[in-house]
């Protein structure tokens, strides 16, 4: 320590040195920590998607010993109702399970022989022994009380029931043995099977309610049509169901055939007959039920196979019919003895004896299954999809708590082709919000991943050649005085906000390109060709002329020619178009239009906002990045190497090709990868110019939907903690992983190239 003062280091220098080294360490570590935290946070939002449904028993209540036909429940699960052939029994869960009942009105003391309940429309249909039918509307409402509990106002559920007058359906006073009814805004349909002298009839009546100018629906029902569909049916009818839009009736018979009647132009008529289990060993239909939205019907047979039939157009010009779409459901021994559907999503609950399964139609997955210690006779899922009510063989009501926040989410819905409702074939589709509440959620990640890769591919296709060639030219051929102008200019280009590029692309470039595709093709072909021809021609000039031009300044001669070629090619576009791209329209006229030729002669779609526009715009955003980094690495190739090559008699191009590019290849590669990384995550440009349709084709004249675009557009619509919210986080995670993989692979390749070409 006793060194002469002049050799001692000042305390301040030591302090700054140790402070800075710690400060930098902390800074670096916190960056890594921040990235990891983001990953953990995203992961935390995504993981609940994979959780299975949780069901736990809440309470068991003894019910009166009556023959329960159907179970109804209000949205809040406070007042379940049990429908028998005579009355409705109510259990007030808010009031010590007090049981009350309301009787159905009878007509001339004729007993009710058939009863049906539709949970979605809360409609009871009654049929009596004289062939008369009556509709009963159940009505639940909330009345708020002046009491508060845990800061929330307490409420009371009020149940009311309004029965419509009986209506003579069967003229011959035949007994109603099966009945179904449903209603839409203004139409009610009642379908019933009557039996007299062992003769079955299928009778349908449509009822209209008049709606006044203010949209008030009057109480009076008028018979619109009375139809007899008996002639279409062969065999004894086992069950009738009616869609919740009151536009479709399905019946199946003991011959295991299904007959479908559908509304077409306001009239209901026979549509189709099919045998659901035609290709199965066990052809006997055990159950037939609509799912929420009534687009899909689930059938089961006694061996426990489940099949889903959806209504769709097999081809453009055919009417909508039922077709087999779901075949991979889990089995349930004996088939669905008891069936109930969710009113929120495509879940359905099936049980047979003690065995119970909660399945999801879209993913064809089982979300919950169990073997209970009682035989299930009736089941219902509450409107909020948070309670399951089961009635067992001893007339005990079992209330179970259901927690299944993300039934739609599964590996299959995210990554496999799914046969969605209404689609003619299994597809990868994204549509988080359908037109209606009933629409099936389409949450495939594949079109988004594909769209991301497609946008990136076309952007790179456009950007990489231009950026790399420009970098080579600037670093190896252009005189230094020009280089000092070009390089900062390109860097300024990199700082252009992408929203401006996207905006210009969408509003100016897209409409212009649509009219000028042949011109663009001609320019793309002719400019490089012209440059190539000029380059070769130049090398054949005698040195005497060539050396008149300073090396690197040749572009002064080339540029005007290239501009001329561009202008000529651009203006030749319409000529090319008239030669090759004409279509004949329906009136036999020839129409010169590339976009119509593309779609009509080749059968591909042409949209104004397409991959080419995205390629140009995103390429424009990526070019400066690739250019700058590639130019740096090309310029950093040691002068000694280029000198060595030139001194051996190599031309500038030979030097560039054989020495400079290989030596700089690691840098050029990472330039491309950084550009790729930018393109993968780019949002604003695709938001403006990609169209946003989740298609899965490489067609350059078609749009796409990328992960980033999807996040940006749907984030405001996603309810917190909801399935869409978490799915968007999942998309973000995929984007994260995608860029992580690209960067890691790129870094490995870069290190490999660098080791191969490292210079002394």
């Amino acid at each position, binding site marked *: 320590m006793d060194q002469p003062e002049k050799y001692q280091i000042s305390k301040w220098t030591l302090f700054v040195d140790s402070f800075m080294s710690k400060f930098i360490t902390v800074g670096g570590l916190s960056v890594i920590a921040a990235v990891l935290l983001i990953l953990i946070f995203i992961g935390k939002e995504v993981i609940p998607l994979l959780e299975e449904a949780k069901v736990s028993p809440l309470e068991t209540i003894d019910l009166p010993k009556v023959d329960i036909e159907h179970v109804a429940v209000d949205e809040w699960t406070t007042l379940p109702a049990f429908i028998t052939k005579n009355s409705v029994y109510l259990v007030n869960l808010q009031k010590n399970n007090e049981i009350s009942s309301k009787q159905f009105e009878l007509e001339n003391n004729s007993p009710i022989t058939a009863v049906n309940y539709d949970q979605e429309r809360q409609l009871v249909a009654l049929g009596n022994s004289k062939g008369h039918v009556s509709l009963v509307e159940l009505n639940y409402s909330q009345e708020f009380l002046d009491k508060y509990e845990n800061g929330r106002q307490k409420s009371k559920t009020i149940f009311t029931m309004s029965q419509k007058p009986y209506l003579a359906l069967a003229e011959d006073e035949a007994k109603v043995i099966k009945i179904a009814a449903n209603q839409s805004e203004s139409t009610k349909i009642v379908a019933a099977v009557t039996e007299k002298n062992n003769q079955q009839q299928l009778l349908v009546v449509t009822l209209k309610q008049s709606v006044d100018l203010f949209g008030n629906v009057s109480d009076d029902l008028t018979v619109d049509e009375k139809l007899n569909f008996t002639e279409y049916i062969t065999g004894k009818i086992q069950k009738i169901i009616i869609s919740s839009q009151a536009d479709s009736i399905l019946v199946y018979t003991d011959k295991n055939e299904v007959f479908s009647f559908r509304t077409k132009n306001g009239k209901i008529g026979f549509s189709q007959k099919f045998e659901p289990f035609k290709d199965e060993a066990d052809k006997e239909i055990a159950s037939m039920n609509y799912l929420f939205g009534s687009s899909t019907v689930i059938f089961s047979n006694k061996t426990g196979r489940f099949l889903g039939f959806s209504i769709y157009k097999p081809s453009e010009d055919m009417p909508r019919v039922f077709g087999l779409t779901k075949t991979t459901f889990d089995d349930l021994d004996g088939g669905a003895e008891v069936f109930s559907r969710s009113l929120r999503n495509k879940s359905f609950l099936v049980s047979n004896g003690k065995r119970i399964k909660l399945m999801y139609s879209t993913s064809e997955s089982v979300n919950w299954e169990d073997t209970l210690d009682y035989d299930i006779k009736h089941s219902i899922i509450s409107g909020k999809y948070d309670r399951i009510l089961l009635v067992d063989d001893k007339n005990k009501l079992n209330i179970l708590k259901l927690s299944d926040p993300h039934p739609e989410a599964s590996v299959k819905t995210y990554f496999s082709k799914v046969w969605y409702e209404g689609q003619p074939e299994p597809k990868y589709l994204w549509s988080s919000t359908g037109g209606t509440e009933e629409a099936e959620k389409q949450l495939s990640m594949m079109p988004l991943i594909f769209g991301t890769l497609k946008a990136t591919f076309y952007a790179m296709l456009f950007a990489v050649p231009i950026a790399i060639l420009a970098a080579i030219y600037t670093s190896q051929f252009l*005189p*230094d*005085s020009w280089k000092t102008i070009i390089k900062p200019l390109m860097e300024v280009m990199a700082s252009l906000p992408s929203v401006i590029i996207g905006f210009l692309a969408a509003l100016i470039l897209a409409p212009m390109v649509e009219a000028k595709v042949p011109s663009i093709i001609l320019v793309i072909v002719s400019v490089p060709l012209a440059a190539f021809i000029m380059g070769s021609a130049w090398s054949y000039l*005698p*040195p*005497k002329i060539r*050396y008149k031009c300073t*090396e690197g300044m040749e572009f002064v001669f080339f540029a005007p020619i290239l501009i001329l070629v561009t202008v000529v090619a651009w203006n030749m576009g319409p000529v090319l178009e008239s030669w090759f791209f004409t279509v004949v329209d329906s009136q036999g006229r020839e129409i010169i239009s590339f976009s119509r030729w593309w779609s009509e002669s080749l059968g591909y779609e042409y949209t104004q906002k397409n991959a080419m526009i995205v390629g140009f715009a995103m390429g424009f955003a990526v070019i400066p990045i690739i250019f700058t980094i590639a130019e740096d690495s090309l310029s950093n190739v*040691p002068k*000694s*190497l280029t*000198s*060595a*090559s*030139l*001194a*051996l*008699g*190599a*031309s500038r191009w*030979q030097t560039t090709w*054989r*020495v400079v590019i*290989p*030596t700089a290849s690691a840098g050029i590669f990472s330039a491309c990868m950084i550009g790729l990384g930018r393109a993968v995550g780019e949002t604003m440009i695709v938001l403006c110019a990609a169209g946003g349709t989740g298609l899965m084709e490489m067609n350059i004249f078609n749009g796409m939907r990328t992960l980033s675009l999807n996040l940006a557009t749907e984030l405001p619509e996603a309810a917190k903690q909801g399935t869409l919210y978490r799915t968007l986080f999942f998309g973000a995670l995929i984007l994260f992983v995608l860029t992580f993989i690209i960067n890691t692979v790129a870094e490995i390749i870069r290190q490999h190239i660098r080791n*191969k*070409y*490292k*210079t*002394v």
Partner: protein
Amino acid sequence: MTDKAILEEKIMSKASDNDSPQENSLINIQNYDFFYGDKQVLFDVNMDIPAKQIVSFIGPSGCGKSTLLRNINRMNDLVDGVHHNGDITINGQSNYDPHLDVISLRRRVGMVFQKSNPFPKSIYENVVYGLRIAGVKNRSVLDEAVERSLRASFLWEEVKDRLKDSALGLSGGQMQRLCIARAIASGPEIILMDEPCSALDPIATLKIEELIHELKKNYTIVIVTHSMQQASRVSDKTAFFYLGELIEYSDTDQLFSTPKEKKTEDYISGRFG
């Protein structure tokens, strides 16, 4: 390509026609002035360099000796804003003849640089680089050229088993000899050496000097060096430059024993430099 044909023939005949004695001057520099922009770095240089001899350029840093060397194969063309007066001719042909392609000039005049600069390629590819860019594809011609050049640069025994290995794995001296092999592989007439040993240790330097001696049989060599001992060891003639002027140019023995000029004497006796 006649160029290529001639080259191939030349290599196959093992440069036999280079054996004919040629006493007359090969490189002729006349009234040569040279400028980097406005700055003149060479003033009225006149000298003859005879064939199959070794000529050293010596002088303090910044005296213009390297500039002159680099003008013999016009490597200075790569610098922005250079110009010259006077002429340099090789075998009577002017370096600045408008009909002359600078590429053919450089094939004729090989060059070895101060810092060894092998390409980041294999040893083999380094040696055949000059031939490849001239368009030679014939495998046997290339193989033959590699062996001949590496033997000529005393490197063959050391690397013959690892021709496919990266040249960057060689030692400093080996790399410099590889650069010499690369320069002679395409059969130049003249080899320019710009301080070829300045980055090497004494043993490697000795090997290079032996090699230069051997090469004299077939090539005309111009070498720029900072080491007067090296100049006196290897060269037949020595030129002393000072501030862009050629002060003295004579046989090496004579220049070092009885310099005519005061400046030369001061320099070689270590009074400045």
